[in-house]
């Protein structure tokens, strides 16, 4: 009987210890931007365009200050794909990682994304258009010193992401066409 009581007491003790311990681990640390010690001059405000309700909507995201345009462009892509997505935002593939970002001599900005952008994308023509134009518009709204954007997947050129639009060519021409609104029949 005594052995059973000691066993139950030990089990209960370890349960409470582990619960408190793991809760302490799960606590999300404050990001530098949320920190009350951070001053306004230490942050960069990014304008991110994400698909919501069949169109692009801009949200502002604050990040620790970045100086170079490449660092800002990297932050734009990371924030664009960051999970969890804001409420109502849809059509952004999960678990996409930025593998690389660089500019060539012709000021073409190359963004190299992990294969999840292709594997986890499921959508129709509009979803694909909004995803690509969201990336493009987010970049041009925050970084100015590039001519065009080219998307690579795992370092390679793909013909298409979702079977509707070309990825083989830079995005600007395709995505700067002024779309006329839908005509409802």
């Amino acid at each position, binding site marked *: 009987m005594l052995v059973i009581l000691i066993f139950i007491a030990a089990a209960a003790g370890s349960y409470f210890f582990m619960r408190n311990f793991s809760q302490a681990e799960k606590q999300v640390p404050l990001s530098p931007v949320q920190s009350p010690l951070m001053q306004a001059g230490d942050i960069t405000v990014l304008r991110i365009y994400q698909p919501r309700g069949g169109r692009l909507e801009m949200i502002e995201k604050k990040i620790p200050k970045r100086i170079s345009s490449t660092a800002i462009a990297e932050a734009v892509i990371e924030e664009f794909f960051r999970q969890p997505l804001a409420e109502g935002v849809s059509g952004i593939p999960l678990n996409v990682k930025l593998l690389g970002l660089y500019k060539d001599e012709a000021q073409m900005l190359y963004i190299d994304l992990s294969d999840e952008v292709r594997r986890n994308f499921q*959508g129709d023509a509009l979803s694909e258009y909004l995803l690509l134009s969201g990336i493009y518009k987010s970049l041009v709204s925050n970084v100015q010193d590039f001519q065009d954007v080219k998307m690579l997947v795992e370092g390679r050129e793909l013909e298409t992401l979702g079977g509707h639009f070309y990825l083989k060519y830079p995005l600007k021409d395709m995505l*700067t066409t002024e779309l006329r609104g839908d005509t409802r029949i």
Partner: protein
Amino acid sequence: MKKLLILFIVGLLTASPLFAEEKKEVSLRFSRQGNIIRVVLESYDNFILNANIADTLSSIKIEFPALFQLKKPKDFIFETSLKDRLLIIAMKNIGEIRTYKLSSPARIVFDLTLAQNTNKEQSPKPELNPELKPDLKTEPTPELKPEAKPEQPVEAQAVPKLYVIDAGHGGYDYGILSNDSKEKDLNLLLTKDLSAALSKKGNKIFLTRKVDQSLSILERIILGNSRNPYIFISLHSSASNAFVVYTGTVDEPSTEASVLLYSLSARQRRHIEKSRALAKAIGTSLKAEFKEDVVTREMPLPILNSMDSTAVLIEYPSLQLNTYDQQMRNRVANAILKGIQSYE
């Protein structure tokens, strides 16, 4: 001990065919027609799919995912060299290279145009760099050579009208997935149903794909334009619960050099009014049949912008939200057919 030895031998015998299957062979063949030399490399699906290709006018380098054995005809006209996983084809006098990865069987196709070729189509836009254009401005591949274009409008012809119907996605591109179905399969079924409905009215039909196979956007464009169709229709699923009928966009071309460099084809420009009228007619017919949301939308979809004929892309309501049995598919096909008839 004896038992162990017997087990070992049996295991070896069982495993040996598996090892034999692992052996990768790449077979090379070539043919020549006019000023185009076609070189084809054929092997296993994953071997071809994961091959990296780099080409210049003087050499093609193909890096395969593993060591391989090259089987080629003795009279192959170019020099080849193998280095580990790399195959190098050295060439001379080549003016243009086009590369395609195809399936069923998996193969890489190089169409090499000899340098003296100057026979090019007129382009509607200034061509700063034809290599970077998304659709073929030069002679299409020998297999896909277009029929001569008639001087008179297509409507004046007495011959049956030709429809090209394109089932979206295919092969490793599944499109939208539902619990038990894939968009690529439903697109194909609907394409066949629409094809049957149009055939009954005495029309000619050409399907860009008849089976589950990968087909790039560029291949679909080449196939579509090579047939010089009366109408081109591409079928896809929508992500929403609405029918969407797309037409291409034909905004005034930009004068900015960097945009011109990569500009999408504007072949659709001279057909856009007809495409819009067709989209409206099909949309009206779908609305009458299904009473669902139906919208027409203009979008710079390469497959529409590059099509040199009346062209629409139809998205049916999401397969995630609807069941497409034979009866439902017939309704969709017949509604599209009625739309086409009212357009005419």
